[in-house]
């Protein structure tokens, strides 16, 4: 089980009217306190319109991917011009997570589901106990505490894609400095009406020469 942070936010590029999303997550997975795997894709496309990101128990995430695979398969088998969009998938996941919680056998994940369908953008989250909501920006785990305050200050409706990436990188850098289970290897996903792309893993530039990082325990009484 690993407690990884992942966060996503949405914005619309001017002047085009199509909606674009931006997501980031790092690619690590821990085994207890051991940072065991360093190349785990925690974001996956679902159907034509959605992207799912998860933190928590990776095996449960894989199970959820199997459920969604079956869901999308049956949806495609209708072959009738209708398709499940991000809102439908999000609500389906909410039902699954909440039902498992009620049986005292939860899927130990925090999920983020976003996408664009027919020009409508959607971003939502579901927790392992079935709490779900939509917002303009969401995060899991530490991201809620460290990244969302930044996003609350700096997110606005008309962010361009490049500015969005920069904002997310700012948030990820904070998480990298402060979350011990984070590694400096992350992916970014871009979702538009036309489709989605997940980047190859890359690293952020970090700076460790801050004077506060030297003698960090200077002012801490009783520390060594």
């Amino acid at each position, binding site marked *: 089980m690993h407690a990884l942070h992942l966060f996503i936010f949405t914005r619309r590029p001017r002047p085009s009217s199509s909606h674009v999303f931006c997501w980031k997550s790092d690619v690590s997975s821990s085994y207890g306190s051991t940072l065991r795997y360093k190349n785990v894709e925690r974001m996956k496309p679902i159907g034509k319109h959605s992207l799912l990101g998860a933190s928590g128990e990776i095996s449960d995430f894989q199970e959820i991917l199997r459920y969604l695979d079956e869901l999308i398969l049956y949806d495609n088998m*209708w072959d*009738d*011009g*209708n*398709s*499940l*969009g991000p*809102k*439908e998938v*999000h*609500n*389906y996941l909410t*039902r699954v997570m909440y039902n498992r919680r009620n049986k005292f056998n939860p899927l130990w994940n925090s999920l983020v589901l976003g996408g664009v369908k*027919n020009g409508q953008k959607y971003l939502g989250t579901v927790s392992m106990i079935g709490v779900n909501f939509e917002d303009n920006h969401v995060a899991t785990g530490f991201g809620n505490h460290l990244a969302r305050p930044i996003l609350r200050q700096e997110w606005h409706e008309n962010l361009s894609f490049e500015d969005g990436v920069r904002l997310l990188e700012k948030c990820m850098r904070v998480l990298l400095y402060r979350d011990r289970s984070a590694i400096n290897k992350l992916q970014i996903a871009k979702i538009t009406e036309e489709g989605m792309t997940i980047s190859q893993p890359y690293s952020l530039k970090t700076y460790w020469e801050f004077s506060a990082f030297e003698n960090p325990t200077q002012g801490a009484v009783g520390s060594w």
Partner: protein
Amino acid sequence: MFRNQYDTDVTTWSPAGRLFQVEYAMEAVKQGSAAIGLRSRTHIVLGCVNKANSELSSHQKKIFKVDDHIGVAIAGLTADGRVLSRYMRNECINYSFTYESPLPVGRLVVQLADKAQVCTQRSWKRPYGVGLLVAGLDESGAHLYYNCPSGNYFEYQAFAIGSRSQAAKTYLERRFENFTDASRDDLVKDALMAIRETLQGETLESSVCTIAVVGVGEPFHILDQGSVQQMIDAFEIVGEQEGPAAEPDAAAGQDASAEPEPEQGAAAGEGVAPMDI
């Protein structure tokens, strides 16, 4: 259709490859009072004739709301129709609960058809004796479907089922090319005209028929008697004005529904010109 030795069981084929019980079930639909449906790109209108058992009783409900975006009109065994409506409502509500999204009507009619098919292939069941005109919206727009007791379903621009539906079908066949881009109100007028065709001379009044509408931005609802009567009065007056072209005698403007009615009925019977508004 005559009795024969292959029509006892629904699971018995005739040598000609027919399932007579299924065909008899379709006969039941033809005996029910008429129901019609027509659609444009954005709206669908359902209409039915209200038949009461006797003067003392009320008429049977033949149009049911299934969800905000789907409604159904039935003809045949109304009890079977009610049961199927309950099934449809259940499916819609379950889908909405799971996906927070309306069930596409195209998927609902397939489920309904598959349910009807089961009854044509079990020796301990009988086919549903009701035909359903399902009106609904999905991602690709407005749709009208007809579901048979046989388990078949078809999509229509306009259709009529039940007794004397052929008269309505003839009217609809003449007019259907205009429906795609028609306004909602014109669609309702056409529905009323089609219903009038099935009445074969009886007066068209709001007490005799029920009209329901569903469309983009307009949830399924049954129009109240007052509005229906207003629309009847409106187009009958227009009909009256066209009347002099066909029959110089029908000059009385005021009593639209009362005494010029027989002439109007006659005009409707020969009636190509007044209808082509």
